[in-house]
């Protein structure tokens, strides 16, 4: 694959998504899709991340947990170069996506974000119709053939079709918070990215909506690689295959299978954090 100035039609070839996958088992291929090598991020003179190296497996859910200010969201944003939008941010190190360093000079961040979609903390649908919200990514990426079909498909995969399928023309802002967030997930998955980054996608939602989002994330892992930031440890334990624990100072303290991290962490600091002794 190439991320360099990819014309919109080539972006199609990036997707490895199987067309029909119904299995809930998301053990995935387990192969590494994203490899971070010694990533440092600075905001002006302040260092936010210190030497992060980890390998994120394909078609699994990887959770990034840690206390506020530990840099987990910063790391997430460096995977699709959203940090580029912050004037003072500076990234050092490499992040390989299928072996290609996304910080190489020949990588266009816009093309990269077509392969690595994102869902944000606060639901942020556009003040447009439900249909246009989902269609937006398809349109800017030039994938607007069979638009109706793709919009419906994305809404189904985001488990919201049953609720909004008969009101596609009404505004995305008229939905409840949980529905808005699932609409945003539909918008992110509609163009079929390989990776979906989620920055605390359920933190602004009530428990029922949160549980719907969690179920949805587990389903999504059958098609996509999901990287999710959360400070809800139960949520990480419930839905993720791998967990990375960031602690204050912007360092990655421990990374491994979620079960092991929560049952038998190597680091005393991680154990203290998980058992609620601090953070």
């Amino acid at each position, binding site marked *: 694959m190439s991320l360099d100035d990819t014309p919109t039609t080539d972006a199609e070839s990036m997707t490895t998504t199987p067309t029909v996958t119904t299995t809930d088992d998301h053990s995935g291929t387990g192969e590494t899709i994203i490899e971070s090598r010694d990533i440092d991020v600075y905001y002006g003179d302040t260092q936010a991340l210190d030497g992060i190296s980890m390998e994120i497996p394909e078609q699994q859910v990887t959770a990034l947990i840690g206390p506020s200010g530990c840099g987990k969201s910063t790391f997430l944003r460096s995977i699709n170069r959203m940090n580029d939008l912050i004037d003072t941010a500076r990234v050092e190190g490499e992040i390989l996506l299928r072996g290609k360093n996304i910080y190489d000079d020949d990588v266009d961040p816009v093309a990269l*974000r077509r392969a690595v*979609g994102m869902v944000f903390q606060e639901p942020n*649908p556009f003040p447009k119709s439900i249909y246009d919200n989902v269609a937006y*990514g398809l349109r*800017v990426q030039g994938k607007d053939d069979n638009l109706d079909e793709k919009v419906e498909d994305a809404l189904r995969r985001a488990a919201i079709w049953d609720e909004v399928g008969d009101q596609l023309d009404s505004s995305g802002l008229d939905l409840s918070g949980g529905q808005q967030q699932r609409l945003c997930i539909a918008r*992110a998955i509609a*163009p079929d990215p390989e990776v979906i980054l989620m920055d605390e996608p359920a933190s602004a939602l009530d428990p029922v909506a949160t549980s719907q989002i969690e179920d949805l994330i587990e389903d999504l892992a059958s098609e996509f690689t999901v990287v999710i930031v959360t400070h809800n440890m139960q949520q990480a334990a419930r839905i993720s295959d791998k967990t990375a624990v960031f602690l204050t100072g912007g360092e990655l303290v421990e990374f491994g299978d979620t079960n092991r991290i929560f049952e038998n962490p190597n680091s005393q600091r991680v154990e203290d954090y998980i058992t609620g002794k601090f953070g």
Partner: protein
Amino acid sequence: MATTGIDGFGSDATLDRKRLYGRVFVGLCFLSTLFGVAALLLLVGDVIYESWGWLDLTFLTHPPSWFPENYVDGRGAGIYPALIGSLFLIVLTAVFTIFLGVGAAIYLEEYAPDTRVTRFIEANIANLAGVPSIVYGLLGLALFVRAAGLGSVLLAGALTLTLLILPIVIVAAQEAVRAVPDSQRRAAYGVGATKWEVTRDVVLPSAMPGIMTGTILALARAIGETAPLIMIGAATTMFAPPRLSPGALFEPFGAMPMQIFEWASQPQAEFQHIAAAGSVVLLTVLLLMNATAIYIRNRYDR
């Protein structure tokens, strides 16, 4: 246990005095409000009273006359050329300011690097909004009428009024652009939109109601401006409206404030009533513009 009961919470002198201060303060605030409203009502009432009997439909549809008796009994004299002149002027000004104002605001808010130069420019745009209109008149005279050799024509008038309200429109448009939440921009970037697409699809549509409101309010100010039009030599009285053709851009023009000023300067007492009738027409156009701005703002306010 201490005694509880309503007796312990009785009123006392200190509280009463504080309440009195509060009531005096509210009274003063109310009087301040009343002063503005009363002055406006008096002004509008007086103008309407003065114009009573002089304002009818023929006043709107006929050219002016030098003889006061022609303005009564539907004999056919009025403000028509100046009314149309003002409308032409304001439409042209609107086109220029929307393009220049929105362009400048988008550049300053979305693209310009946050440097000392940018901040200097932004501070001075705000300062320009406070420059007296006659100074813009002098600038328009030097720049458009003389240097560009346009003469005292409609285009020169519109460009001068554009200069006058451009700072106000830029500041209003900047505020509207700044009010677009960053989460909306991130949403578009997140699905692989370019900066141009984010600006076109997300920032501009969200900012448009605010931009339109600010622009219309600024235009409402421009339509009543007299000083810059006097400076650039607009006609005080026109007997025919501007033609509906591109050539009209390069021909002399009249405008309502100029015509009202001319009527008010006439020696015959009747012309004071005619000037009042013209003022009512001008005020009506102005109120209609403000009402449109308020309608747009309310319609898009969620």
